[in-house]
């Protein structure tokens, strides 16, 4: 029985408070008792309830689906993006991962490309700029042919899915010592480049997305921290795939290959 081992633990939360983008920000410390069956964000909800009762402003943090799929949540927990549990977004982390008496340091995702909005909330809109640069297949509504006209080898479809599983949370950027967005960008490039439907724009897409990425984010130096932090365990292979395609895109005579 799941709750058979639930217990109440006391934790100390050292959390980043920052009033706005131009405020300096500082840590504040709070104590919170919590059952181990609660999620990490429910623990913050309770803490906010008590701050509210004391007439203090609650801690701003973002979350929405709380099922690990929308990508809205994400904070640094003890220095790790999304906290200690592998393949788990912040909203899916439960207090059973912590011990009685733990001090838990909670900070916003730190990256030059993600300015802090308030407390734990950051601006991740540069990720949308990367998608805008070419993260799509150009097919107008109504222009599609029958879905089974083009068979897609199962392995290709499965691999494309592995890349498409990205939830756009930005943990890869936050975990990277260089604040690079290679894992995010390569996941989208890999998803589309592995499918026959994505071939027509393969080279232009790769080139344009990579170049917009570089406007906002740092460079990849193969630390692999992004993969460690990724709640969907997106493989580093996609970065290699993207790098290879980027070089090819640069040297391809696209007019002759018939591909944009």
């Amino acid at each position: 029985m799941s709750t058979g081992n639930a217990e109440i633990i006391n934790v100390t939360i050292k959390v980043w408070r920052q009033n706005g983008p131009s405020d300096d920000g500082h840590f504040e410390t709070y104590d919170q008792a919590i059952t181990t069956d609660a999620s990490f964000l429910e623990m913050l909800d309770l803490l906010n309830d008590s701050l509210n009762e004391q007439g203090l402003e609650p801690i701003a943090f973002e979350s929405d689906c709380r099922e690990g799929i929308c990508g809205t949540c994400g904070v640094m927990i003890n220095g790790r993006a999304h906290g200690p549990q592998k393949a788990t977004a912040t909203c899916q982390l439960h207090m059973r991962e912590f011990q009685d008496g733990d001090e838990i340091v909670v900070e916003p995702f730190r990256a030059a490309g993600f300015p802090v909005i308030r407390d734990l909330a950051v601006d991740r809109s540069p990720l949308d700029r990367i998608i805008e640069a070419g993260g799509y297949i150009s097919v107008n509504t109504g222009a599609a042919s029958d879905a089974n006209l083009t068979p897609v080898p199962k392995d290709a479809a499965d691999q494309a899915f592995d890349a498409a599983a990205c939830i756009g949370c930005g943990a890869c950027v936050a975990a990277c010592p260089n604040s690079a967005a290679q894992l995010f960008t390569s996941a989208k490039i890999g998803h589309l480049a592995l499918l026959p439907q994505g071939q027509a724009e393969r080279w232009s897409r790769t080139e344009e997305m990579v170049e917009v990425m570089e406007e906002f984010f740092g460079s990849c130096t193969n630390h692999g921290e992004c993969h460690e932090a990724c709640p969907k365990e997106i493989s580093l292979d996609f970065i290699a795939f993207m790098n290879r395609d980027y070089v090819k895109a640069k040297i391809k005579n696209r007019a002759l290959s018939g591909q944009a």
Partner: protein
Amino acid sequence: MSENILDSKVPEGSIADKWENHKFSMNLVNPNNKRKFEIIVVGTGLAGASAAASLGELGYRVKAFTFHDTPRRAHSIAAQGGINGAKNYTNDGDSVHRLFYDTVKGGDFRSREANVHRLAEVSTNIIDQATAQGVPFARDYGGLLDNRSFGGAQVSRTFYARGQTGQQLLIGAYSALMRQVAAGSVELHTRSELLDVVTKDGQACGIVVRDLLSGEVTPHSAHAVVLATGGYGNVYFLSTNAMMCNVTAAWRAHRKGAFFANPCYTQIHPTCIPASDDFQSKLTLMSESLRNDGRIWVPNIEGESRSAADIPETERDYYLERKYPAFGNLVPRDVASRNAKTVVDEGRGVGPLANGVYLDFSAAIERDGLETISAKYGNLFDMYQRITGENPYQTPMRIYPAIHYTMGGLWVDYHLMTTVPGLYSIGEANFSDHGANRLGASALMQGLADGYFVLPYTIGDGLAGRLGESAVPTSDPVFTQAVASVEADTQRWLSTNGTKSVDYYHRELGRIVWDNIGMERNKEGLERAISDIPALREDFLKNVRVPGSADTLNQSLEKAGRVDDFFELAELMARDALTREESCGGHFREEYQTPEGEAQRNDENFAHVAAWEWNGAGNTQTRHREELTFENVALSQRSYK
């Protein structure tokens, strides 16, 4: 009761010809004139993103609004199981007519036949469109698309992308939208929450939004406004909806004259993880597709203390298989949910709080092997384990029904236009296609049908006659007054300075709604809700405390307005449920059931849509009717035996 009859504007002709004929008879806006029209789309989930992208492709000037930081966050993303499409790739006898039939029957004969048929017709185009966008649907070894079956159907017509179909379809629609943003045909406003719909001379002419970061309140005008703002399940506080889902956009439109239809039709999803604590923030759904391979059971006796593994086969009650041999564990959601409530109420619930039933995969694992089951449901099993700390490969899952979807919503005609000219509503925000109960894998289908293939046609018909008309300027008094009123509301919340949090009131409201307008309703409970809800609201308005200021990210302030709208909605839900003296689909009145405990419809008096008209704050709303006629699917008592 004197009730006006609403005109649904369903076209003439046989059911299979209506949409085709209608497309031909509608007025068109020629390609060069489309750029002269501005359209506002609010919400960027499946319906909103697909509509904004498609309208942008057509050449309209579109402004899309979302309160998220990016369109890809919308709650459509959380749909797991799949999307229906009448492709008949499995050669098992599916057709447009069968999908139409199943949907009307599944909706317990409370939906509009013409809309449902159109939905079934365009369902096949959606699969084509999504595949072309790169949605990685599951495939078989020949590289062709795979299908599975879902509750309420006896064919396999559900397309899926592992357990993340909603995510993949939303990424498809989102990427189509971002392509139009890059092309300049769609202007995207993120972190912008609609706080009012603006009308002039009875016609929708724009909206007022608050920037959630700066607090700035701005007016936006257009020739037409489309609301794609989702459902209102969070009125229950605990639901499977995302934390920010709310009724505010639809409700403020309602207050501006858009009728609200069938608010009492709410859907309980049978397979959610039971609550474990009082302060639980939300419930998590486990895809209905699990019912394909999982067997649902409870112990034969009350107060069973043994763990699942220690209860022998003969002492288990596989109650769905026992009561419904034809459909078994795949009965529709409302039937599965009510049966779970029955056995839990009998004291046969399982888990530490005795508030669940088992969903057991041991037979499937034995039959198909661990690997097959893991390939099908691996991510769901992992999610379950993360939340509960239990391993469902070894011990059965525990599940219980939770609020998941709302069939009611803004009333729309066949064009998807509300009772306010120029104001449209699509996706879960409208009431249109699911009747009193939605079938699994049909929400994604309806959202995308509306956005890709219906609204882009019908909105043109409404705009064609208005060529040369410019949008109402935002300097017009209708806009300045709306902005001033939104700003005044904000100040009122911040200066109330009571003692209790917004969440406290939301939780209390949710309790009233769940207890009285939940899975089963009765006259006494509904009357109690009608008196308790306004009393709690009065307390809320006097004693809520909204800390912080208006000119920064202020999540308490955002919630205050949303919860306030839930109060008014909840009261209307109770009134609607009280007036509908029958049981149908998700609306189960204890007084109206068959001797076997099934929903007892009253077709003579209630084969209609109830659409409510706002009469000003504090006044009872007026109930209007849209008569429903069933010419193609014979009215019958649903039976899944």
